[in-house]
């Protein structure tokens, strides 16, 4: 059976150029980037080239890039490195658990936490951020693009406000990088989390942008790597691959995002036309070009994911957890979906491999599966 992949927000396939860079580096560049000799220097050069490639993609200085073991680690580092019990953090109700959980860890020890509502659009109101500021506020942490809805948050506006108030702003950019232009000067964030595998790079490597002058404590201890911010021998092949992925993303971004937005709109319009009782969750404007979150009234999303998978189409209900079971999404709950509608919602996230033929085939499979599920009336 042919399998089609519509789950690029979960992860992306590694691009051929990225794979080549990673394999050649893994095979040949085995030196420790901290070593003085030839082997160490070669590794260091590969790593620094990648740092420049990633910095170029986000219009930052290479010295502002700290490589990490992934997006979750970057988020954790930003929160736990900036906030202490007794302080106050402003975030949103639709953040990724990689931000919410580290905040929550200190909440019972006296960290005050404001989770801003987002309304039905899935977009936070900058005025709400201003109103939530207190003298104790130590960090504002707001995602750039939401993983389930694709909605883009008004980061530049929030950054101006944060700068006026003198409060550091962390932005979880894991779902935005590679999908929309990211310019650290225009955005104005002080910290920005990134992950390689969301833009056709390998898993297990990420980065945190740390604006010059931002003081942040490391998560782990034991070495002077990454300017004392992230100890541990660097994952040189992964980092080199991340650099290539960043460069590829920079080159293809404009054309690819137009193409994906076209496919995504075609998917949504065809579904809305051909399947009754459907609708889009969250705003249809101001979102990443590849993401669509659609509800199918009266359908159990879990059953639909399985039925589609058995027909060869990989989609998602939202966040996947370790056991592979599915829990109701906190994001859909936050935008006002009642539990029934939340469970009836599916996330489609498109990417480089998807074609218009695949989109039409997906709609056909959806039509058949939804009709079948409605006929046997499996309730959420």
């Amino acid at each position, binding site marked *: 059976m042919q399998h089609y992949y519509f789950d690029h927000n979960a992860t992306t396939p590694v691009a051929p150029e990225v794979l080549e860079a990673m394999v050649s580096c893994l095979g040949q560049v085995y030196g420790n980037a901290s070593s003085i000799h030839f082997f160490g220097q070669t590794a260091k050069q590969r790593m620094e080239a990648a740092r420049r490639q990633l910095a170029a993609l986000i219009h930052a200085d290479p010295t502002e890039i700290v490589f990490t073991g992934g997006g979750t680690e970057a988020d954790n580092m930003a929160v736990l490195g900036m906030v202490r019990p007794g302080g106050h953090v402003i975030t949103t109700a639709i953040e990724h658990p990689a931000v919410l959980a580290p905040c929550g860890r200190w909440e019972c020890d006296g960290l005050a936490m404001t989770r801003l509502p987002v309304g039905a659009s899935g977009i936070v109101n900058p005025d709400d951020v201003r109103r939530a500021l207190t003298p104790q506020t130590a960090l504002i942490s707001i995602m750039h693009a939401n993983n389930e809805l694709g909605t883009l948050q008004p980061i530049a506006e929030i950054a101006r406000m944060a700068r006026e108030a003198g409060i550091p702003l962390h932005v979880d950019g894991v779902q935005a990088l590679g999908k929309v232009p990211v310019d650290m000067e225009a955005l104005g964030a002080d910290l920005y989390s990134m992950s390689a595998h969301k833009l056709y790079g390998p898993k297990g490597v990420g980065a945190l942008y740390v604006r010059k002058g931002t003081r942040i404590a490391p998560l782990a201890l034991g070495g002077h790597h990454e300017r004392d911010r992230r100890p541990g021998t660097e994952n040189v092949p992964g980092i080199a691959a991340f650099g290539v992925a960043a460069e590829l993303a920079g080159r293809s971004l404009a054309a690819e995002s137009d193409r994906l937005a076209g496919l995504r709109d075609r998917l949504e319009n065809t579904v809305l036309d051909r399947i009754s009782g459907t609708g889009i969750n969250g705003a249809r404007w101001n979102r990443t070009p590849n993401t669509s979150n659609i509800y199918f009234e009266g359908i159990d999303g*879990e059953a639909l994911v*399985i039925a589609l998978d058995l027909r060869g189409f990989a989609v998602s209900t939202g966040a996947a957890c*370790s056991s*592979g079971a599915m829990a109701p999404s906190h994001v859909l709950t936050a935008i006002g979906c009642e539990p029934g509608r939340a469970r009836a919602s599916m996330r489609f996230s498109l990417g480089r491999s998807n074609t218009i033929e695949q989109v039409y085939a997906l709609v056909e499979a959806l039509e058949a599966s939804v009709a079948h*599920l409605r006929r046997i009336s499996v309730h959420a």
Partner: protein
Amino acid sequence: MPETPIAVAMSGGVDSSTVAALLVRQGHSVIGLTMQLWNQRRLPELAVEGASGRCCSLDDVYDARRVAEQVGIPYYVVNFESQFEEHVVKPFVQQYLAGRTPIPCTLCNNYIKFDRFLEMADAVGALQIATGHYARIRYDKPSRRYQLLRAADASKDQTYFLCGLTQPQLSRTLFPLGEMSKPEVRELARSFGLAVAEKGDSQEICFVPNGDYAQFLDAYLKESGIAQPRTRGEIVTTDGRILGEHAGVHRFTVGQRRGLGIATGEPLYVIATDPAKQRVIVGASDDLLRDRFFTSDVNWISIARVAQPRRAQVKIRNKHYAAPAWLNATGDPTRVEVAFDEPQRAVTPGQGAVFYDGDLVLGGGWIE
């Protein structure tokens, strides 16, 4: 797909794993599904270090996934936690608080494994389901009924918990292990090279990992924010003498001997609990004997109903040998009086009563 697939309920244990492997070996198209019923991270105070036999743990999902990979079938975890809480855990708690002794496994079979799971099977295009239960199903042409029969291995027979199965449910269900003994199943699992072949049997009720129901009740009520019911009261003998105090009627079940905290010459047993007066009534072993009781919400399986008094063997708890009795019809076809030939010990309200005719399961209901 070549044929309509069979959905196998995979718990990660040796029985359901063997079912999946066996059906694949027989050439069927199979889909493996694991039901996530209970979040083991809840109620951490009940956690048992290294506990085995709890269902829905990450280890069990790991095992089930591994078997599915090995036998080459699509595999998914489906989340029925909210339905399990609604139809199994909450009634379990309510029944205990009302002084009865519930059997959640029967509720789980009725509302989850053979209801919600069948719906999910439908959803993924499977007309039939298969489980690792030890029981047999047979279609009886003359009566046009699906009959339920005890497992060939009487020591593993699980029909007591399956007495709520309806005709539509039975018509779509396969119990491939019904003719086998446990050692045979393990041997089969070994021959298939399944890593779970030597895995221990599950014990107790899956969401009460340490088997301490009273402690589970305490923790569950605390988590739900429900105040502990004030069920502290008197321990009274059958002839009305007050012997002492107890910490709550829900901590006692009919036939229980230990935990009364009273030292007397002869052994004392719980004869009944009276939640209205918050009393635990105790007596001698012989006081536990009863020769008749009513069963309500009877589900008839192998026969349509009883009209005339009918001979049967009646099982009043899982470990009870089925005792000879008469089933006497009442005006209500779902209510039956059971009259034992010999009085039986500890007829416990809330438990199931299942009626047999030899290996045939006639039906079953709840002890009033």
